[in-house]
């Protein structure tokens, strides 16, 4: 039996050593090589435009950007990728968007802004319906979760669980070393970049772009705004196919196979955040990004996705209650957006995003 246990142990160790080593070395989300963020931030602060280094821990990146701010921005935009590409028409504006941001991530960004004394006079919250789904309060970007908890503490008073959770979340990234999901991502990256390139340290060098045009690679502007890559702009046919597939396989981004009810706890937390910011003298705007026409039609016709319409109704009511202007709409019809206005089935083209922001429905 000893021989069996030893052999099993050796095999298990061998498998896990390979997993941990690859996860650490390839590190698809750059979690263990924060140097990449450290290299990016000074370049952006110096006004350079850089090429986005693919998989990036956006939470850490935004934290470093906020931490190193020379002066407090006048406007900060919070939300998901729905606000990340928009050419915001404000002087001294910082785009703090995080892909697929949940309510917890809104809290995290506010937490970081307060922590590093950068709370602006004006915050635009690009609210998405999934921000009010179950567990949305936990946030999606684990690396900045502690700021969400601190922020919650400030908004709602002490929470006895916060310290424990915060401690746990400090170790989250080490869990990823052992994660099969992270291993799959590492392997995928290794396949796409080639073994030798993905294992080389200089693979993590930052490339400075000389313009803000749409080119091969996605770019990041000094104010945190992203520029679409060429491959990010799809044809109408591709977008229609992708939207149809998402509807058919019932995987409509974060909404998955359905979203019917808004979580009361999340609504309360969101309202508390708005009230807190208003008390701090911050002017707030909501921005609703319109969904792709066929997808929005699907939401209107299917009870399973009625939460999307309820979210808009809720946000408009909340806007009235606290004197917050609601820009845009989830409805492509109301905002007049057509298939050709979309970069992909999920995002408007940058100029159309701005056009939508300027639409205020009454």
């Amino acid at each position, binding site marked *: *039996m000893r*021989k*069996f246990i030893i*052999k*099993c142990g050796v*095999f298990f160790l*061998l*498998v896990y050593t*390979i*997993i941990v080593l690859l996860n650490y070395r390839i590190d698809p989300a750059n979690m263990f090589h924060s140097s990449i963020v450290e290299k990016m931030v000074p370049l952006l602060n110096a006004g350079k435009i850089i090429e986005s280094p693919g998989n990036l821990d956006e939470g850490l990146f935004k934290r470093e950007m906020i931490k190193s701010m020379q002066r407090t921005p006048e406007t900060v935009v919070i939300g998901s990728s729905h606000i990340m590409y928009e050419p915001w028409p404000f002087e001294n504006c910082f785009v703090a968007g995080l892909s697929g941001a949940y309510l917890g991530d809104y809290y995290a960004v506010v937490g970081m802004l307060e922590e590093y004394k950068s709370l602006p006079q004006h915050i635009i919250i690009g609210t998405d319906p999934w921000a009010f789904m179950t567990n949305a309060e936990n946030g999606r970007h684990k690396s900045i979760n502690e700021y969400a908890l601190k922020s919650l503490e400030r908004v709602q008073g002490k929470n006895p669980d916060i310290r424990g959770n915060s401690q746990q979340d400090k170790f989250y990234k080490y869990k990823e070393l052992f994660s*099969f*999901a992270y*291993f*799959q991502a590492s*392997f995928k990256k290794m396949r796409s970049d080639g073994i030798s390139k993905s294992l080389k340290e200089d693979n993590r060098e930052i490339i400075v772009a000389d313009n803000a045009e749409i080119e091969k690679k996605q770019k990041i502007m000094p104010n945190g705004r992203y520029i679409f890559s060429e491959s990010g702009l799809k044809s109408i046919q591709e977008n229609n196919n992708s939207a*149809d*597939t998402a509807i*058919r*396989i*019932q995987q409509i981004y974060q909404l998955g196979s359905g979203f019917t009810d808004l979580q009361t706890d999340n609504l309360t937390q969101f309202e508390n955040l708005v009230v807190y910011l208003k008390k701090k003298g911050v002017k707030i705007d909501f921005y609703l990004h319109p969904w792709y026409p066929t997808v929005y039609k699907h939401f209107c016709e299917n009870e399973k996705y009625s939460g999307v319409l309820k979210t808009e109704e809720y946000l408009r009511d909340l806007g009235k209650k606290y004197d917050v202007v609601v820009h845009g709409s989830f409805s492509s019809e109301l905002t007049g957006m057509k298939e050709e206005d979309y970069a992909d089935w999920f995002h408007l083209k940058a100029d159309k995003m701005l056009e939508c922001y300027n639409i205020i429905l009454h």
Partner: protein
Amino acid sequence: MLFNSWAFAIFLPIVFVLYWCLPHKYRWGVLLMSSYYFYMSWNPKYVLLIFLTTFAAYLAGRLLEHEKNEGGRKCIVAVTLVLCLGILFIFKYYNFFSENLVHMLQLVSIQMHPITLNLLLPVGISFYTFQTLSYVLDVYKRKVPVEHHFGIFATFISFFPQLVAGPIERTETLLPQINKEKAFSYEQATSGLRLMAWGFFKKLAIADVLAIYVDAAYASLDKCAGIDCLCAIVFFTIQIYCDFSGYSDIAIGTARLLGIELMTNFRSPYCATSVKEFWGRWHISLSTWFRDYLYIPLGGNRGSKWNHYFNIMLTFFVSGLWHGANWTFILWGGMHGAVLVLENCLSKCFAARSRFSNIVSGISVFIFCNIAWIMFRASSVNDFCLIISNLWASLGNWAEFKKSTIGLNASFLRGIAWPVAVLVIYDYVSMKTDVQKWLAMSNIIIRWAAYLAIVFYTILKMPLQSSSFIYFQF
């Protein structure tokens, strides 16, 4: 607790170490406690059902031992059957029968509302009930001795590797193994791990990957046509095989780690050249159960040919019903029964078989299985008709046929082709040789390379949210 969960990955080594470290007289206790814990991790309340079934069968065994009168013995068996099957009926079939009775009454203009029960179907209830019944019936026929030790008997009924989805073990094979003192066997344990690895590969790298596509197709049947229909049908045929045989391999492998041999449940079923042969290769523990406890007692192939055909049809209808309380399952059983009857009728015409006719028969059986699995997977007979008509309607137009609307693409097909090719080769070769044994005998470098390849491939390909096993619902 699923085999493909972290909970099981922690649970099994603990049970393994405890089991082998303790003296033989305590081992049944480890197995019993771990089995009940395993089951309770799904739903603690329902462990009472297993306990009740176990107690009833144990009591029946003891009473049968002392009862000499044949009438009394029959009475004991009848009461036990009513009790065990009654529990199964209430939890699994009551609503189905109630609703169908109301429908039938409506046909003769009697209006009634069905009285239904809101009960959760206990996982594996059909499996452990059938294992219990086989014990009672074997004791009645004096084929096996009565087990006096309640703890050991309860371990036999609830043995966790095969508790929720089989194989349905026989008393004469499993009970003596629990009773018998054994020494740890390195060869047996390693062969168990090998089989588990193969089972996980089938479940996670094939069945779960295909499930994503199959579920999407069956969720939108009204829009599913052409290549999507065809792929959904073929993929489900592969999925259910990999899912269920994967579970069986993991169960058999787990039992081997504990020094217990369970029966083989699958033997390359899609290589069968007749439906009769298919049932000798698919879910063998269930098909032999029905053969021994239903088909043969009904008269089997004795008597007139019409009696024989009736016995086949009845056995297959009941087998279909065993899978679930839905007409689709009953009709699925009926389809297999009907083809088996047809095979019997035509058997004299095809007595001598050439290699070519075997290939043609094999392909025909595989196509038939695909069609029958549609009935099995569809949620209603209407859905079955819909998928067949959608497929049929799109056959004429190749441009339309090849257009996928559920996300089928070349990269998905390439991705799944490799593991399926490995599966086909494995199944084909294993008809002639024991692949696992061959691997065990091969050079250490080849062996470890094979182990690492299968483990890493499974880790890399498995969907991040693994689904439950299909046969858990039965």
